[in-house]
C-alpha cells in the first residue's frame, strides 16, 4: 500500500470541501482533495437534461426504507463540484429563529451558534460568490449586507405569478440567487436560458469549479479524482485521526497521512465512512461516542404547483430556480396545526423533459393526451415550488447495510419518514399554492406529488458531546483533528435551501482550523 503525507486531506470536492481547500491552501497548508467521482471541467457541462444525469450519483447504491425517500441520487453529485455543480443557486439565509427553535418553541434542538455568529460569514461568502437579489425587498430577511448584484430579470411567467401573490395579499421579492446578473470577478453574467440543472459552463451560476476550487489550486491544493476513500484512519489511542485509506480507479488501495481530516463527501457518504472506520477504540464508528452518527436525517418536503394559462408565459426563459421568493408563512407556530416554516420559489424556467420537466408534471398523461398537453404547456404552463421545514427525528437514520460495494465497503442504508409536521405543512402549502395559481388566473391547476429536496443531518452539531457529533466549528467532539463539512452538521432543517449556509459554516470552520492550527497538530 502506497503512503503519502499532507497537512490536510479533504474527502470530497464539492461545496464544503472546496471552501475548506481554498482557506487552508491559502494559509500555506499542504492540501489534498480526494474526490470519489471523475474530474469535471466547465466544458463537460452540455446543455441537456439527459446529459445532466451523469452529474449525479449512481453508485454505490443507497438502500432505503421508511415511508419516504430522501432521493439520494437526485440530491447528490459526483465528481469535482459535487452536488453544487448542478444546484440551482437559491441562496436565502437561515433566519434568526432557526438557530434556537428549542429555546424559543420547545421543539427539536438548538444550534450551538446564533445567527449573529454566522452573519459575517454569510456576508463574506456572498461577496466571494456574487449573489443577486434585493435585500430590501426581502422583508423576511435577517440582518446582513446588501447583495452585491441586482436581481435577475422578470419574464412574463414571473409577472403572472406575482400577480397571483399580490391578489392574495402576499409579498414577493426577487429570488436571492448565486447567479451573476452582471460580470463579476472575471465571470460572465447569466443569459437566462434555463440550463442550470445541467451545470453552468459559463460560471454565471456559482459552483465550486469557478469560485473556491480555482482559489484552492492556485494556492497549491491538489485535486485528485477517482479516489474513493474507504476508511478514516486513527491512532492506537483512538483519540486522533491520522489520515485516510482510499482506492484509486484501478482499485488499488493507498494510505494518505494527514494532520487533519475533513469529511465533505455528502452526508450519506460521510456517515458511511465514519461507521466503516470502526476499530478497537471506536467499535461503533469514529466520532460516535454519542451513538448519534447517522441519526436525525432530514429532507425538505417539497411540492410543485402548476397552472395552465391562456397567454404565452415564456416559461423557457429565466433560471431553473425561479424569479421570485415568498416567505410570508415563515412563522413557525400559530399558522395552523403544523409547526415549521415554508418557502416558495416562483416561476422556474422549465424544459420539456426530465424529472422536473413539463411532461413529468402530468405523469398520468400518455399517448395523444400527452401530446395535446405538451402542445399547450410548453407555451403556457406556470410553475412554482415550495419547500417546508422537516423536524429532526432520531429514527431517521443512515446506517451500514449488509451488502458491500466493489471496495468491500458496506453500502449505506437510509431509513426516512417525513415528520408529521412536515407532512402537514406540505398539505397546507400545496393548498396555498393552488389558491395563488387561481388568483393569478390559471385555468387548470394541479400539484405534483411530495418530493424531497436537500438531505441534512446525520452528523449534527451541538454543544453537548452526549447529544451531538460535532461542536459549533464542525469539529468532532471525539477527535479534535476530524472535521465534517456539509449539511450533515445541520441540527434542524429550516425551510430554505441549504447551500449558502453550508458555505458560511465551512468558511467559519476552516478559518477556525487555520487560526487554531497549533492546537490541532501534535
Amino acid at each position, binding site marked *: 500500500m502506497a503512503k503519502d503525507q499532507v497537512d490536510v486531506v479533504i474527502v470530497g470536492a464539492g461545496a464544503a470541501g472546496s471552501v475548506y481547500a481554498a482557506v487552508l491552501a491559502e494559509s500555506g497548508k499542504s492540501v489534498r482533495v480526494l474526490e470519489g467521482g471523475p474530474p469535471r471541467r466547465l466544458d463537460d457541462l452540455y446543455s441537456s437534461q439527459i446529459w445532466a444525469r*451523469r452529474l449525479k*450519483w449512481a*453508485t454505490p447504491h443507497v438502500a432505503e426504507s421508511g415511508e419516504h425517500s430522501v432521493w439520494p441520487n437526485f440530491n447528490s453529485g459526483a465528481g469535482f463540484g459535487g452536488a453544487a455543480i448542478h444546484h440551482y443557486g437559491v441562496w436565502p439565509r437561515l433566519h434568526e429563529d432557526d438557530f434556537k427553535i428549542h429555546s424559543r418553541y420547545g421543539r427539536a434542538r438548538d444550534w450551538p451558534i446564533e445567527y449573529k455568529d454566522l452573519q459575517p460569514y454569510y456576508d463574506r461568502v456572498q461577496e466571494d460568490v456574487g449573489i443577486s437579489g434585493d435585500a430590501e425587498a426581502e422583508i423576511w430577511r435577517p440582518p446582513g449586507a446588501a447583495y452585491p448584484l441586482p436581481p435577475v430579470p422578470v419574464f412574463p411567467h414571473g409577472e403572472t405569478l406575482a400577480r397571483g401573490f399580490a391578489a392574495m395579499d402576499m409579498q414577493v421579492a426577487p429570488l436571492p440567487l448565486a447567479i451573476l446578473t452582471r460580470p463579476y470577478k472575471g465571470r460572465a453574467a447569466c443569459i437566462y436560458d434555463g440550463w442550470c440543472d445541467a451545470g*453552468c459552463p459559463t460560471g454565471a451560476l456559482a459552483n465550486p469549479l469557478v469560485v473556491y476550487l480555482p482559489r484552492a489550486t492556485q494556492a497549491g491544493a491538489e485535486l485528485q479524482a477517482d479516489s474513493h476513500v474507504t476508511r478514516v484512519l486513527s491512532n492506537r489511542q483512538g483519540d486522533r485521526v491520522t489520515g485516510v485509506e482510499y482506492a484509486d480507479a484501478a482499485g488499488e488501495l493507498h494510505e494518505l497521512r494527514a494532520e487533519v481530516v475533513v469529511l465533505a463527501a455528502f452526508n450519506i457518504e460521510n456517515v458511511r465512512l465514519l461507521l466503516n472506520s470502526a476499530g478497537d477504540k471506536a467499535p461503533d464508528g469514529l466520532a460516535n461516542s454519542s451513538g448519534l452518527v447517522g441519526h436525525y436525517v432530514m429532507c425538505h418536503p417539497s411540492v410543485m404547483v402548476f397552472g395552465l394559462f391562456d397567454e404565452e408565459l415564456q416559461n423557457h426563459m429565466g433560471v431553473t430556480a425561479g424569479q421570485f421568493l415568498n416567505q410570508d408563512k415563515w412563522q413557525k407556530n400559530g399558522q395552523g396545526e403544523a409547526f415549521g416554516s415554508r418557502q416558495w420559489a416562483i416561476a422556474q424556467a422549465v424544459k*420539456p423533459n426530465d424529472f422536473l*420537466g413539463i411532461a413529468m408534471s402530468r405523469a398520468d398523461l400518455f*399517448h395523444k393526451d400527452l*401530446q395535446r398537453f405538451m402542445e399547450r404547456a410548453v407555451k403556457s404552463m406556470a410553475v412554482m415550488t415550495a419547500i417546508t421545514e422537516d423536524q429532526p427525528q432520531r429514527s431517521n437514520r443512515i446506517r451500514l447495510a449488509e451488502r458491500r460495494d466493489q471496495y468491500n465497503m458496506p453500502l449505506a442504508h437510509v431509513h426516512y419518514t417525513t415528520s408529521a409536521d412536515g407532512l402537514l405543512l406540505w398539505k397546507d402549502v400545496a393548498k396555498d399554492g393552488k389558491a395563488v395559481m387561481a388568483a393569478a388566473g390559471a385555468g387548470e391547476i394541479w400539484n405534483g406529488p411530495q418530493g424531497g429536496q436537500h438531505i441534512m443531518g446525520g452528523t449534527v452539531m451541538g454543544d453537548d458531546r452526549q447529544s451531538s457529533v460535532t461542536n459549533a466549528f464542525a469539529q468532532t467532539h471525539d477527535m479534535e483533528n476530524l472535521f465534517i463539512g456539509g449539511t450533515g452538521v445541520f441540527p434542524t432543517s429550516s425551510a430554505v435551501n441549504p447551500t449558502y449556509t453550508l458555505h458560511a459554516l465551512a468558511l467559519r470552520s476552516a478559518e477556525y482550523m487555520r487560526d487554531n492550527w497549533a492546537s490541532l497538530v501534535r
Partner: protein
Amino acid sequence: MALTQSRRSFLHDAGLGLLTFSLAGTQVLLTPRQARARSADLRVLDASEVGILEALGEVLVPGAAEAGIAHFVDQQLSVQPNDCLLMARYMNIEPPYADFYRAGLQAVDELARRLRDTPFPELDEVAAVDIVRGFSNSSPEGWQGPPAPLVYFLLRSDAVDVVYGTVEGFAKMNIPYMPHILPPRNW
C-alpha cells in the same frame, strides 16, 4: 465559449462513447433515430424485448419508436451505471438497470397475453392504450415484475427523452434550445 467545435465534438464523442453503435462490425457515431433506421446492432436487449419496448414507447409517446427509444435504452444499458443517462438512476434503481428493464418489459407483455391473448406488440392502438392505462397507476393482479407504476414512469420518461428532450424535439415544439454547449448527436 472559447472551445472550438471540433474540440467540443471530440469531448462529447469521447464522453458519450455511449453513442457508438455497431454497424456490420464497424463502430459509428449515430443518433438513436439513425441507429434504428440503419438497424444498428443491439448490445443488451434481444429482438423480443426491443419489439415490446418500441411498441410500448409508441403508446406512451407517439413517435418514440422512430426516434430510437430501443436503441437509446439499449445503449445506455450497456454502459457503466455512473455513465448511464437513463432516468432510472434518479429513481434509485439498483444497477444493473438491465434487470429492471427486462423484467418490466416481460411483465407488460405477459399482461397483454393474459388479458388480450395477444403479445403486446401485436395489440391494436386502442387495446394497447387500455393495457397501459391498466398498469400505470398500480400493479394489476397477477403482475410479475417491478412495481408497474415505476415501469410506466421510467419507460414513459425514456420515451419523453427521445421525443421531446432532444434538439430536434425542442424544434418541433418551437421552443428555443439556447444551448451553452450544444450536445452533439441530439443528447
